[in-house]
């Protein structure tokens, strides 16, 4: 996880423990984050991460999360994932 100015970059292959740590980190700082980027070279390992990113976006719609905004991701392991959000 890297926080460079306004951009937070995370790795997709987080374990549950790392997702928990990420959540703790991002909660008090969400107001200051402009963008959350994901290094998409590797696949997301847990649906909990996708949920967290959706929750972040829902909490502060101004924050840019390109991974969530594009609505889908593809991996060799599990094919294509689409997520449907109400907003």
């Amino acid at each position, binding site marked *: 996880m890297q926080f460079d100015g306004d951009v937070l970059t995370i790795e997709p292959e987080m374990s*549950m423990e790392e*997702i*928990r740590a*990420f*959540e703790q980190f991002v*909660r008090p700082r*969400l107001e200051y984050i402009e963008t959350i980027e994901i290094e998409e070279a590797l696949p*997301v*390992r*847990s*649906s*909990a*991460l*996708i*949920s*967290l990113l*959706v*929750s*972040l976006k*829902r*909490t502060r719609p101004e924050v840019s999360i390109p991974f969530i905004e594009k609505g889908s991701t593809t991996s*060799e*392991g*599990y*094919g*294509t*994932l*689409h*997520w*449907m*959000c*109400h907003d």
Partner: protein
Amino acid sequence: MEHCIGCVMTKQEQVKAIFIEEAGEIIEKLDVDILRFEENPEDFDLLNEIFRGVHTLKGNANAFGFTRLGEFVHHFEDVLDYYRSTHDTISQDQLGLFVDSVDIITEVMTCELDALPDLPHGYEGCLEKIKALIASKKDAPSPAMIETVAEALPDLASEFTFSCEERMDREIAKTIELLQTQQTEGTTLYKVELTLDKDCYKRGFDHLLFLTLLGEKAVSMESFFDMETIEPLERFACDENGIKKVVTLLLTPQGIEEVRENFEFLFDHEYAITPIDVMVADAAAANDDAAVADQTAEEPAAPVVEKREIPDRRQSDRRGGSDTPSVTASKSTIRIDTFKLDELFDSVGELVIAQNFIAQNDKIRVIEDESISRAIETLSKITKRIQDRVMSLRMVAIRDTFDKMKRVVRDTSKKTLKELHLNVQGEETEIDKTMIDSLSDPLIHIIRNAIDHGLEANADERIAVGKNAEGNITLRAYHKSGSIVISVSDDGRGINKEKVLQKAVQRGVVSGDENLTDSQLFSLIMQPGFSTVDAISDLSGRGVGLDVVKTSIEKLRGKIEIESKEGEGTTFSMVLPLTLAIIDGMLVQAAGEIYIIPTLSVVESFRPEREIVHALKEKGEFVSMRGQHIPVIRLSDVFNLPTKRIEPWEGILVCVETEAGRIAIMVDELVGRQQVVIKPLGKALAKLKEISGGAILGSGDIALILNVDELRPLIEASRGGN
């Protein structure tokens, strides 16, 4: 599901049996939910739940060729779908139609199961009303559409009219079509739905874990995550699953069993696998491409998908059941044949007997070895724990039965034109499953009786005596002294004691000279053919009801108590044992034999003073108690036991309440009180009316359980009918 000894069900029959059981559960739930919705027609979450139940029922009914049921629920589903998507106002008439529709569904289900050629009365009429309703709604623009059109550009309207779930359905339908073009021989397209519980991450499961497993053998795979229920950060916890549903379309050479193996560690309600039938889809598509296209635009393509789905019995889409209160949904459950539970219970009964035998064995007790004593004590504790746990398996909350009664109250209230309020208390009280099944009819009768006759005839009559216009019926379940009490109270007129006594004298039930207590007087209304009601209604008052209620409750080894105060109301209490398999008994000894008297019947036990015992020639012995002359019955006489005859004041009298009044059973001594596992008697002893069962005591001895209701008639017969 009933156990079928000696029957071997084919796979198809087994699947059908599962369908029937599940359909029954869905219909029962619909019956309850539709009433809840009638009370609160703005609860669209509940309407969604009702819709899902109907949807599941439709799929299953069509899969088993129950086309009449399928057709009805199909149209009913359309109506529900309209209201759940538009949140349009539902009028009282329409709510009434919903309630009637559930009735028709129940009746059609019976017709289908019994293969009856005729449809239930009202089927056509109700179906026409449903069709007319949906047609009228389709002609008129929905409120949601009007709102959207007003606020957004016309070409965006369709995009924003759909909910997240509907958009997902559209995407899924499109993807199915796409994947079908890739489908080759030897591959199957499956729709896999994952609805993992909130705690799945803590259990080590993750949606992506399963998708990766499926991906190992997949030719092609696409998944759709419904994120509608993901909460904003203040209510979010990343280690609790908030994803409502994940639908995966899987094209694979694997068979359904192989696909299912990936989910073997999940609960049944957490996943559903549905093969998608290509042939049906192709035929449908070829027949009417244009229609499909129109449908896709109009109704998010769901109908197209449904036509192609073949429900898998294990997936069972049991949303009707699992979407009930969230607490229930997160519990893991397993369906077990009650026959197996009974077998398990019997085995535990044997274990208790064997443990008691060890604990009370004289040869073992004389061994003064601390380790043996400790081992016996531990065995005793564990046995008790196992017994309690196995007992609890048979116990179910009375909530479902009470929920059914809400319908009875509603219908009776409408028929009698009496406004009333139903209070329900103690719905969580647990009761033996076997008893629950037998309780409905008595309860229905008592409730109808309370509304029809207990409450005042109308609001004016209530207001005239200073009561609220609305009557109150209270349904309550609670524990009392080791028994379960289910009571029905009304705040109506109360029982007119004089009228009851007058009627009883007229009918020769009592002479009128007796000094009857209130309880004895009220119990007269439970006599066969006894009714103080002048007019007979179609609800109650035929004079054949309450005695049947009494008999039904007594079959459950329970009793009915009535309390009433004129002008204030009446309470009927059904006092039932906790279970039918165990009885709380008083152990008594007569002529060296041990007998068990059900504690529920025992009023008191005492050694009488010589002065209160009287003997009349040919009428036998009596004991005078508080102004009452109670016949004394010697247990040794009942069973012709050879014994030295002693006087009543030298023995013990156990006073018990029976159908025919109180009797005092004379025994040599009281041994104790304990819970005993009831064992059925063999054919030879089954004919003895005065015995209701047997039990094996800790000593290994067998004790007979007395059927006290049969003792008095027996003795009266022996005394020449007096």
